[in-house]
Each structure stands twice: as structure tokens, then as C-alpha cells.
């Protein structure tokens, strides 16, 4: 069955990819996402499981090691490229809005 290709990243997806710039397992990803977003974004294990399988089938991440009861993942070059693209888009959004938003004050 052909997998649906990922075109854009949702907010939780962006944070999960960010946290996978270092090798991490499921529970570590969850706490890292929580940490970098300052508790604003939290992600449940079920949602994370679905997301990781989607990322893996799209080659954005890969499984590096399997321990009993846990699998460790890390981002791939393709994943980094996608993350860069998303980062650039968000930065662009912020930059575009800056002049106007600062003018409001």
C-alpha cells in the first residue's frame, strides 16, 4: 500500500523532528517535546506511535537500535532537510509579521 507522502508538518510533528536531532526513544521524545515547548505542546504515546511510523515510512527518521521494550530513533538527512524547510517557513512568517506587529505598539 503506498504511503501518503508528508508535504507539510503539523506543530507536534515539528517538535518531534526537533527532538530527534539526537537519538531518542519514545518516552524520551515525549519529555523532550514537553521541555523544548515549555510544556505548551504535549504528545501522547498513541499519537507518537502513529507519527513515528509515518515518519519512518517517509524516511524522515530511522530506527537505530532496538532494546527490549524500546526502540531508538534518529532523524535522517531527508528529515533534516524537511525540518530546515519548515524552520525557514516559520522564520519567514515571523519576519513578515514583525514590522507590522511592532508598528502596532
Amino acid at each position, binding site marked *: 500500500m503506498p504511503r501518503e507522502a508528508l508535504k507539510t508538518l503539523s506543530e507536534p510533528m515539528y517538535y518531534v523532528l526537533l527532538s530527534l536531532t539526537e537519538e531518542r526513544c519514545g518516552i524520551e521524545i515525549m519529555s523532550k517535546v514537553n521541555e523544548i515547548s515549555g510544556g505548551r505542546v504535549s504528545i*501522547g504515546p498513541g499519537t507518537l*506511535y502513529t507519527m513515528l511510523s509515518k515518519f519512518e515510512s517517509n524516511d524522515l527518521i530511522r530506527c537505530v537500535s532496538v532494546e527490549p521494550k524500546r526502540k531508538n530513533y534518529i532523524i535522517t538527512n531527508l528529515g533534516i532537510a524537511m525540518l530546515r524547510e519548515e524552520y525557514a517557513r516559520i522564520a519567514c512568517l515571523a519576519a513578515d509579521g514583525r514590522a507590522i506587529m511592532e508598528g502596532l505598539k
Partner: protein
Amino acid sequence: MKQKNTLKKFISFRYTDLTAVCEYLEEMEAQGWQLVSMGMLSEFRKCEPRKVRYAAELLESASAISNSISDKSQDYIDMCEQAGWEFICNIGKMFIFRTESETAPEIVTDSAEKLADIKKALLKTNFITWLILPVIMIFNFVMQVRANGSIAVLASQYIALATMLLYLLFFLTVILQIAGFIRWYVKAKSAVASGLQIPYVGLKQLRRRKLETYIPLAIIGIILLAASISGIIQGDIIMGAMALIITIFLIAIIALSHLIQKLRVPAIGVIIISVVISIAMMSLITYGLVFTILGVDREQDKIKTDPIFNKAGTLMLNEDSMPISLNDLDIVDDRQEEVNNYVYGSKTILAAKYSYNSELAVMSDNPQGIYYDVYYSNYEFLKKMYIDSLIREAQIVDDLKQEQFGANEAHKLSNADGLSDLMIVYDDYIVVYHYYHDESKPLINSAAKAFQNVLDLS
């Protein structure tokens, strides 16, 4: 301990009821009953009453028909356990977790994803009930109509009426289910779009849903019970026994599917077992239910005892009577014997159709016989349907002078095989004489007149 330590309960749910399942399990545990396993019957163990959180989640990639846990499902379970949820059991695509922790995160934090998974799982698992079964039923119904010639004929058989009623009930249930699901899905979808909570089925609705499962089971049970009792009363051992066998069979199926779920039989095994059971069930229903339980329609060859219209002066359509026999037409003399005279057919509250057959023994120089069907109904549309179906089937239709038969209509229907039938339509009855040709004309003419006499008398 003398007290009961385990409790078995029947829980009926759909994939849209996940929240209600959690609420139910939390309530049970608050009352001191902890879930051990789910299946046809869910098992609870006695525990200290406590407040815990349950989660019932769908794993879309899991098999819907088997409870065996694949490697992928195991990864999923591991991830949830790491996050502080204890895996309890799974039933198809539904996985049940429990946690005492207040801080364990929700398992699914993306409500749009959850809704999409529920939709997919529901459509996949209901594929057979919502699509395949209705198609098979429509096909079966069309075949039945074709085999009998007309719906009007089916209306004279209780088995056909019962089947149609069952189909109708089934279609109604399916339509209600689909409509209910669509209504819920549209609501849920707009709730997700506007960032609101998805309106999942609550515990109250789940309890009501339970009735939807109990009532059909109760109806089947009552039918089976009634069948075995009436079988015993009528002294029909076979009928009683068949009803008993089917009852045992149904109980065995329920027990088996409980076992399948408990033993986590892999999907391929479930498919094989289901196919075997379906075939066994189909043959049992076809040969058992049709011919024994609804025994009213068992085709019976009954030798006519006496032509009742002579004595009683009324026409009574029942299995033991034959309105017109050769004897009644003064064709049988002392030397001759009437043979092969039988009547078969059936009668319902809507219509009756009987077929008659009477022949003279071969010792006659000119062997004669008379074969005819009588169709009776109080309902104009059924009679019209019956007439139309015969006219439609015929190759050539000749309208005859109806006066000579004292009837409303008379048609000669010539069929493809070169034989002709004579259809005479009276006020209440339609009589079809078979094999109408020149030689049999006098015989049929007198039979038709005799029949008219019977109608006049009645």
C-alpha cells in the same frame, strides 16, 4: 474465600463507544471490580475499590478479527507502557490500558487523528455487514422470486414471508446504523474543525445500545423455543430436535468465538473457522430451518381422502381436500381407479397456492389426468401480480371467451415448450389448468364448470 472473586459480563460496544467503555470500566473499578480481559464475555476480578483512569484506544494497523498481538502492536503497547499506561487486553483493534498515575498523558492527543482512525476502523469492520450481506440478501431474494415466478407466490409461503421479514429487519438495522454513524461523524467532524470535544457516546447511551443486542438475541431465542415447543406438542420429534440442535449450535458458536478471542487465534485461523462455521450454519439453516422448524411449508404429498365439495358444499383450501378430482367429474367408473392424486402447497394470512394432480390408472383405454394450480388471495395486488407473472412468462397469450367458464377472465397461455395452460380468473380465485390442448378441452371445460359450481355454492 466464599465470596465470588470473578465476574463475567456481556459488554456490547462499537468503535464510536470508546469513551463510554472507559467510563464503564472506571465505574466498575470504583465498585471493586477490575478488568482482566474483554471478549464475548468480559472478565472482572475483585479488587479494592479505587479511582483509576482507563483508556480504550484504536490501533488502526491491528487486525480487526484476531486478538493476536503483532510486532507492530507490541511496539505500540511498549510505547504506551513507557508513558505510564498498563496494557490490560485488546479486542480486535481496540486496546485497553489502565493507569493509577494522575500525570500520565492522554494516549491520543490529536483528536482529528483519533476520529479518522475510528472512521477507518468502523468502515473496515462493517464492510461485511453493511455491504456484502445486503448484496447477498438481495441476490438471494431475486433468485427466490425467479424460482417461484412471482412475489405473489412467495406471499403464500410462511418461510418466504419469514425470510423477507428478516431481510427487512436487517436492512432497517443496517440503514439505521449507517445513518447513525453518518450523523455522528458529521457532528464529530465539525466539532474537530471548531476545536471542540468530539461528542463520543456516553455510558447511558452504551447501556441503551446493550438492548439493541439483547432484543434480536431474545427474538431468535423465542422463535427457537416456540419451534421446539410446538414441535413437541405436535408430536413432531424431528422439528423439536432440529430446534434443539440449532439452539445448541448457536450457543456453541458464541462459546467458540469467546475462545477464539481468549486464545488470541491469528487472523488466518479466525477466517478458516468462520468459513467452516458459515457453511455448517448455512446448510443447517437451509435444510433444517426451511424444512422442519417452519414446517408449515414442508411439501407434503397427501392422498386425497374425500372430495369435500360434494358433501360440504363449500370449497375449503387445505392440504387434505381437493376441490375437483376426476371422480367428481364422473370420469371414473367402476373399473377404473384414480391414482397419483395429491395436493401440495401452502397458505399464509396473505395468500394460498395449491397444486392438484389427479390421474386415472393406466387400465383405462384413454388415460386422462388433470393438473391445476389454485391461487387465492384477499388482496387484489397479489392476484394481479400472480396473473401478470404468468402472462409475462407465456410466449403467446390468447384471450378466451370467459363466459363459458363463468369467470371474469380466461387466457390460453402458450409456453416455449409447446404446452399450453389455461388461466381462469374468478372473483377470489385464479385457477391454472396445465397442458391445455384439444383433447383435454372437454375435461378442462367440465372441470372449470365444476369449479364454478363450487364457487357458486360457497
